[in-house]
């Protein structure tokens, strides 16, 4: 059996000098490695894509994505907004947006998104049985996400909010590498454990060259329904601000724990619909305004035809 050093010698000298294998490159340069990555193709009809992500699960990505999409639709009534749920294992959007019914194909064999509260939505949860687990390995998941991105009749859409699953794996890589993402919003709680994972999420976006719009701190503080006193259940309230300063980002929203938010998600009527003038809805609207401002300052891309 050849030793490792001899094996490397054979690869670098003997094979690369072979007349039959002149094109073989054993040690590609960084530029050559970059060329072999998949190219980003925009989704037909969609102007801007915003990813709502975090490294950690359960910090409120879906809640923020849903309320952000509805706030964008409320604050800019002339713009069309879509919401795509790419969490294949735990799709929450159908429940939160009160979506039910069949998904139909149009004449071009594209899936027609379901509409509620002025937002066009698509999720794997609309295509699978709610009782059945989705037990898929990475390749099948990537193929499903590709279909959700490319084979949906979004129509001309100004904003597409993409609710990403937790972690930094297949789905996040597939989305970031295959479509041009105009901005990412990172959601975190003040806990150090969540901040460490949020930092990893931000690092992943830096690696795949996706700009981060800002950080949203969720579950920052809790106001007792009985005595009105404020406490921080998940660590001190400055966690996300420290992360933002360290990474050169800005905090674009600070949402407290309000039982009405959880109740709204559970009941299929998000808080921005049930209580549009409340303090929480105002906080979400501020996030929507900052996101829209960031995207408009990026400049208009070339028109993407349907």
């Amino acid at each position: 059996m050849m030793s490792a050093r001899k094996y490397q010698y054979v690869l670098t000298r003997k094979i690369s000098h072979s007349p039959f294998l002149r094109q073989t490159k054993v040690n590609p340069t960084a530029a050559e490695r970059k060329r072999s990555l998949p190219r980003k193709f925009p989704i037909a009809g969609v102007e801007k894509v915003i990813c709502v992500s975090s490294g950690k699960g359960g910090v409120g990505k879906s809640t923020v994505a849903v309320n952000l999409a509805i706030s964008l639709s409320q604050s800019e009534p002339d713009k069309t907004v879509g919401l795509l749920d790419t969490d294949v294992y735990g799709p929450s959007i159908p429940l939160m947006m009160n979506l039910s019914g069949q998904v139909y194909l149009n004449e071009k064999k594209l899936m027609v998104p379901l509409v509620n509260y002025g937002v066009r939505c698509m999720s794997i949860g609309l295509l699978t049985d709610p009782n059945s687990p989705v037990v898929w390995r990475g390749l099948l998941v990537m193929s499903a996400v590709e279909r959700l991105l490319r084979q949906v009749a979004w129509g001309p859409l100004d904003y597409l909010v993409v609710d990403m699953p937790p972690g930094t794996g297949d789905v996040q890589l597939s989305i970031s590498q295959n479509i041009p993402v105009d901005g990412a919003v990172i959601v975190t709680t003040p806990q150090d454990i969540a901040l460490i994972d949020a930092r990893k999420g931000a690092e992943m976006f830096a690696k795949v060259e996706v700009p981060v719009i800002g950080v949203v701190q969720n579950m920052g503080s809790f106001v007792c329904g009985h005595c009105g006193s404020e406490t921080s259940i998940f660590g001190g309230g400055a966690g996300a601000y420290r992360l933002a300063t360290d990474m050169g980002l800005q905090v674009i929203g600070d949402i407290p724990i309000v039982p009405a938010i959880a109740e709204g998600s559970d009941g299929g009527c998000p808080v921005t619909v049930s209580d549009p003038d409340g303090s929480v809805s105002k906080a979400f609207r501020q996030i929507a305004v900052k996101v829209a401002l960031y995207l408009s300052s990026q400049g208009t891309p070339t028109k993407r035809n349907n």
Partner: protein
Amino acid sequence: MYMNRYCLWMFVVLVIFMSPGVELTSGLSGVGRVLLVLSGKGGVGKSTLSVQVAVALARSGLRVGVLDVDLCGPSIPRMFGLEDEAVHQCSGGWLPVQCPVMGAEHNLAVMSIGFLLSSKDEAVVWRGPKKTAMIGQLLKDVCWGTIDWLVIDSPPGTSDEHITLMQELRVMGSERHGALVVTTPQIVAVADVRRELSFCQRTGLRVYGVVENMSGYVCPHCKECNNVFSQGGGEALAQLKDVPFLGRVPLDPALTMALDSGAKGSSFTEALLDSPAIIAVQKLVEQFSGMETGNAM
């Protein structure tokens, strides 16, 4: 003279080969029982609960190992205050990191990919096949020795990591492993965890029961209980799927901050022993380990 030297060498070789070698059992062969902590939903407190359950088992005198297979977000080293520790190798593979906690000085060991990363901020951005290979190594190449319980903290969902775990555990025999399914009271969480229970049924994984975490928060000012994330979802799910309901674990900010701080020895100090969360976990550990003792009789 040469014969003497030859005889000496032969004697040394014989001594080496005939002495009973100290072999550390690697992989799952020395593990008594495996407890898989699962949830379809992220952020329900799987890692926090895994740590509390492992410490409760270790305090009762059992030898316990904790394996963290959440490759993208390994929280276990920080919760135990072991972030700066390194993994050492022995002839059989990797040695898990020993974790002395109050009341269980020598019978708790931990293994996680977090120990193998060069910095705590390093992101593991891997596709499925690489994750599968890493989990295979974590299951087969760690020298647990002979332990009573192995608590495995998994990532959310039913993905590559879970499929690989089930394939490896199947070799062990279904009576020696089981799942603890964690949820929060919210319907959004319960909807995802329902799928996880279906996954357990389909793969023949025994379910010890459902735990409702983050169930209630007692305000430190007025001592009234607030249902921060709705209520009752976990119990309803357990009834629907006909599995035991092991109880509710309330939110305790003091415990959360202690586990979050990452300081060594900060977790499970004397001050936290009367935390309502730890008391609730103690009861649920008694329930499912009682199930095991009942089966063994």
